[in-house]
């Protein structure tokens, strides 16, 4: 390490690497695969949360992931978004971006958005401000200090407000919204971010049936332009989302147990065993 | 919102008015400021001195007051916060118009007050031993200067106990640093070799003395008679002495002589393992004189507890207060300038059977007593200087100050007059 640094200092024909701004390669999805997770393993205090996990998500795909408690669903999301470092394995975003080299903000800026299991919005800010902060714009401290909204951005916020049906509450504090509204606001924030990949963790927890239907519609409509990975417990909802031909992945004990259409998965003997044995 | 505004306005008005009200008070009493911390870390030492001052003032009033007027004590609490000392001193002088301030403990509090009393021409009587190197027109140092405590103590150890090897252990602040520098120079001038002096500094409130006491033990096992000169301050003393006791360092093997451990500090320590260790002061409660007996009785009656002890800084306040009273009587006024002039040369009895005189350098004459700790937390005097010693503001053993003298009499009127360059520096007025 210090040796190579020394070499570098002697080599004065180029800018030192530590002075060069960290450039991110552009996203490349030539092979139609947006997310590669290969051989991932991670353990906490001897508990193997993820065990040799392999998962590929196609560009524009809507993928549902199910699995019993402790199957490693949230941990997987943590790895993708940079919150948890895997002990081994690799995670690539497209062919060029190595997710394991990046931290959370960089991953977010590369185009991965995440919705938490528990709705996490900025409670003390208004709905409008929540969306404003989610907007893709320069994130450097001084740019943020001087940032002003232009007309186009306002329109974009209005548009999302309409989509998540919170026009009335735009000035309300996010903390005063109902649970379902918070879920929607968080989805709205994701949309503002315009990510290439959306990770959605149990989006319908605490929603009424109507809200669930709307959420399903919304998520389905997003697929195509964005890739969407949904982790969900509610089988009805998954059925609704997956329809007949979308892929469903079943996680168990930190690795993929089965993958296929909803029908295939439901009839898989091992899956039944895992779910019934629970 | 309006409420808040009103509140702020009221607050500032009360502040302004309360100040105005107090200045308007009639001057039928003479006010005496008492500036000792009653809360915070210094309260442990200073509360007693506040009570001493109240007792002395009460006693004076019983005798008919001063210049036909009653004395009134104005007690404020600088809360062991150094900037607050200055603020409180200013308040006493500007707002309460006190005739004199008795107070402060530790040099930093005195240094904080100093510019204020100089600016407003007040009088400050400082009752605690200190490192010297200061002489202000407005301050009277009734505690010991290093030559009234440290040097006689070392003389005693050297001549009477035949000490050849020295550990100078102190808390890391100016008093120990200066005292130890003076002592180092003094010891070397008496032929003590460099390797026979070990100097060690510890932080305030140091509580783990194992290593240092062990070092002292091994330093003392080199075959030469060894002593520890301790300028360890306040709270750190208890764990230090406890560790000495625990590691079996007895006074017969390695005596420890302390300059900041008095009767009051000992009352918080189990003194039994410390019998024979020494302290150098200008007063001990055990001194057998009539004045002292009367003082102790008076103190016990005032405080309502016969278990309370008296100590050296209390005697310093006793002397300082009596000197001030004498000087005011002599001058016929409490005007600070007149008192400053009148007080030089004033002589009052001390509690150890002699007299204390205010010298032109604003320090007083004191006898130096060496006492050994007894199991009951008292000191037994084992040696005393044959006559009183004049406090020396500027040490003869420090490079920077040996050419400086202090004399506040006319025509010199200078606290730091350099006899070589013939200049009076550091006097802004």
């Amino acid at each position, binding site marked *: 390490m210090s040796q190579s640094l020394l070499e570098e200092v002697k080599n004065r024909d180029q800018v030192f690497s530590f002075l060069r701004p960290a450039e991110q390669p552009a996203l490349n999805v030539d092979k139609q695969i947006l997310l590669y997770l290969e051989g991932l393993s991670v353990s906490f205090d001897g508990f193997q949360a993820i065990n040799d996990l392999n998962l590929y998500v196609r560009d524009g795909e809507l993928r549902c992931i199910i699995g019993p408690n402790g199957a490693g669903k949230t941990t997987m999301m943590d790895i993708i978004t940079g919150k948890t470092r895997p002990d081994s394995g690799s995670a690539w975003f497209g062919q060029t971006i190595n997710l394991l080299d990046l931290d959370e903000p960089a991953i977010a800026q590369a185009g991965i958005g995440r919705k938490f299991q528990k709705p996490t919005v900025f409670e003390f800010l208004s709905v409008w401000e929540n969306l404003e902060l989610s907007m893709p714009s320069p994130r450097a401290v001084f740019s943020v200090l001087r940032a002003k909204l232009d007309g186009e951005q306002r329109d974009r916020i209005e548009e999302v407000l309409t989509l998540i049906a919170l026009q009335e509450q735009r000035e309300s504090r996010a903390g005063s919204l109902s649970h379902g509204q918070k879920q929607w606001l968080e989805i709205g924030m994701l949309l503002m971010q315009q990510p290439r990949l959306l990770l959605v963790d149990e989006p319908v927890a605490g929603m009424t049936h109507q809200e669930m239907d709307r959420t399903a519609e919304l998520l389905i409509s997003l697929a195509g332009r964005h890739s969407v990975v949904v982790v969900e417990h509610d089988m009805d909802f998954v059925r609704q989302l997956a329809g007949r031909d979308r892929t469903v992945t079943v996680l168990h004990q930190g690795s993929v147990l089965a993958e296929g259409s909803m029908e295939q998965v439901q009839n898989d003997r091992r899956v039944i065993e895992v779910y019934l044995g629970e | 919102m309006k409420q808040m505004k009103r509140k702020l306005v009221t607050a500032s008005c009360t502040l302004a008015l309360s100040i105005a009200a107090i200045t308007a008070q009639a001057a039928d009493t003479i006010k005496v400021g008492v500036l000792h911390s009653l809360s915070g870390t210094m*309260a442990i030492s200073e509360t007693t001195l506040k009570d001493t001052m109240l007792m002395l003032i009460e006693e004076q009033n019983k005798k008919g007051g001063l210049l036909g007027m009653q004395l009134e004590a104005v007690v404020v609490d600088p809360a062991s916060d150094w900037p607050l000392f200055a603020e409180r001193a200013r308040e006493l002088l500007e707002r309460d118009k006190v005739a004199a301030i008795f107070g402060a403990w530790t040099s930093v509090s005195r240094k904080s007050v100093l510019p204020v009393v100089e600016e407003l021409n007040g009088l400050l009587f400082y009752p605690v031993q200190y490192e010297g190197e200061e002489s202000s027109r407005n301050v009277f140092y009734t505690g010991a200067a290093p030559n009234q405590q440290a040097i006689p103590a070392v003389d005693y150890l050297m001549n009477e106990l035949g000490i050849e090897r020295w550990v100078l252990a102190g808390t890391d602040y100016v008093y120990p640093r200066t005292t130890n520098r003076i002592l180092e120079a003094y010891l070397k001038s008496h032929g003590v070799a460099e390797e026979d002096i070990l100097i060690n500094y510890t932080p305030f409130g140091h509580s783990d003395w194992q290593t240092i006491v062990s070092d002292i033990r091994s330093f003392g096992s080199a075959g030469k008679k060894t002593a520890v000169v301790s300028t360890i301050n306040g709270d750190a003393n208890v764990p230090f002495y406890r560790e000495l*006791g625990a590691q079996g360092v007895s006074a017969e093997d390695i005596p420890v002589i302390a300059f900041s451990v008095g009767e009051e500090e000992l009352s918080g320590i189990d003194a039994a393992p410390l019998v024979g260790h020494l302290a150098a002061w200008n007063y001990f409660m055990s001194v057998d004189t009539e004045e002292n007996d009367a003082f102790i009785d008076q103190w016990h009656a005032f405080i309502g507890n016969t278990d309370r002890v008296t100590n050296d800084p209390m005697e310093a306040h006793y002397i300082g207060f009596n000197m001030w009273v004498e000087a005011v009587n002599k001058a016929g006024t409490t005007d600070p300038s007149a008192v400053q002039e009148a007080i030089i040369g004033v002589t009052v009895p001390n509690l150890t059977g002699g007299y204390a005189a205010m010298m032109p350098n604003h320090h007083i004459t004191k006898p130096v007593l060496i006492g050994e700790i007894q199991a009951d937390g008292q000191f037994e005097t084992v040696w005393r200087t044959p006559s009183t010693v004049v406090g020396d503001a500027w040490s003869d053993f420090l490079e920077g100050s040996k050419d400086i003298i202090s004399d506040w009499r006319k025509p010199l009127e200078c606290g730091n007059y350099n006899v070589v360059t013939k200049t009076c520096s550091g006097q802004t007025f």
Partner: protein
Amino acid sequence: MTSRIIRWLLASGVLLACLAVSAGIQAQTDDQVLLEVQALLVSPNAPDKTVAIERLAQADHPRALEIYALLLDSKLYFNRADDFLYVIDNVVEGAPALALLSQETSLIERRRDYRRVAINNAQRTQIRRVMAQTGLNHERMEVRVGAVQQLMGDLDQDALTLIREAYVSETHGRVRDLMAVALAIDTLTSGDEAAQRDAISVLGGSLEPRGRVALVRYVEATDQPRLKTLAEQALVGIDQQVRFYKGLETVFFGLSMGSVLVLAAIGLAITFGVMGVINMAHGELIMIGAYTTFVIQQLMPNHIGLSVLVAVPAAFIVSGLVGIAIERGVIRFLYGRPLETLLATFGVSLVLQQAVRSIFSPLNRSVQTPEWMSGMLHFNPVFAVTWNRLYIILFCLMVFFLLLLILKRTALGLQVRAVSQNRAMARAMGVRSERVDMMTFGLGSGVAGIAGVALSQLTNVGPNLGQAYIIDSFMVVVFGGVGNIWGTLVAGMTLGVANKLMEPWAGAVLAKILVLVFIILFIQKRPRGLFPQRGRAAEG
């Protein structure tokens, strides 16, 4: 006892000579000597007392040892009115005063009438030396060792003669070794080369500091190159061993400092680590424990040894109750707002401090060390550990494992862990989380009180006691990893030892600063301490 003195006196050439000198006053009765001694002892001049002590020894007075002991314990007083000596245990009005000569008891009317017969260090040494001469034959080994050491302080021919005689009949190894060293020191200065060679080997095999000093002096003075080389080799050997034992001592010091840190921090590890409550009043709970010790000692002044043992459960209960009061009165309204508990408990700490100032005065209180905790455990002349430190290390480990047992093996422990991991779930399972909070906080506070008992044996018992330990305690808990009391143990011991290892070369202040800087940097590297909780629970 007396017969032993006489036996020894008869054997002793020294005092035979003295007796011969005083043959002229042989006729004097013991009482006359006593009268003479009394007159000398009440004199204000120190040299008179020296004469008195000598006089007692010369006259081989039957009460000499008794008077010596009274002088050493400073129980001898004189009345200023009649200049008689009295034996007084406690100078208060109404207490008995036993006249030394007449053995009559009177009551003290004014305590100022009685003055102590104070002796100085030189006289104390003088007395101990006289007593040491009899001590060489004392039945207790420790006394014999002390006697030899006392005599070694000034090895004159008389002392050597005594040691030589005692050496013949001495059977205990340690005393023999010490005597051998004393004799070898003398032999080293003799002219006999073979004897000197033996002496060097004896001294080289001993760690006695006086022996080392003798060797150093010998090397400086001698002109015999072969013996000089031998002595130098012996010195190298000694110094090597001394260094080793110094290292051992430093480690012990570190462990002992560490155990103090652990004791102070472990209660915090429970309240802060397990419950997530930042209790700034923790230091004051320690202080309350220390004051409890003081109060207990006041209540049972004649059983100091027992009082410390009684103080442990008492302090646990008192601090625990105060802790429960704090929990019920303040903290329970602030769960889930850790930073605000910090502010509120800081307020509590100020109130407690000032309360102690009002109740006990701002002065430090004196807590006595019981007999069984004082003194040292000697392994060899350069390595000894103090009993109080040793007990505190053991005590710390005991408290630690007891707590571990409570947390791992009892129903309360199970419930505590359940609540700390998932409050809502534990509630749903029927755990009364309020009660568990209260008990846990009481437990943590009680342990703080126990720490106060230990600290009362080492440091000031005063209103500032708590503040001195609160920051250190937090550092230990954070360094060890919140929620893990093993972490606290390891962290406390590590910091203690690190501090002590650095102290010799960096000084106490810099060592402490370095430790703090180290903790700051360490937290950057491992934001959750040495033993972090991992997994989902930690994110909560």
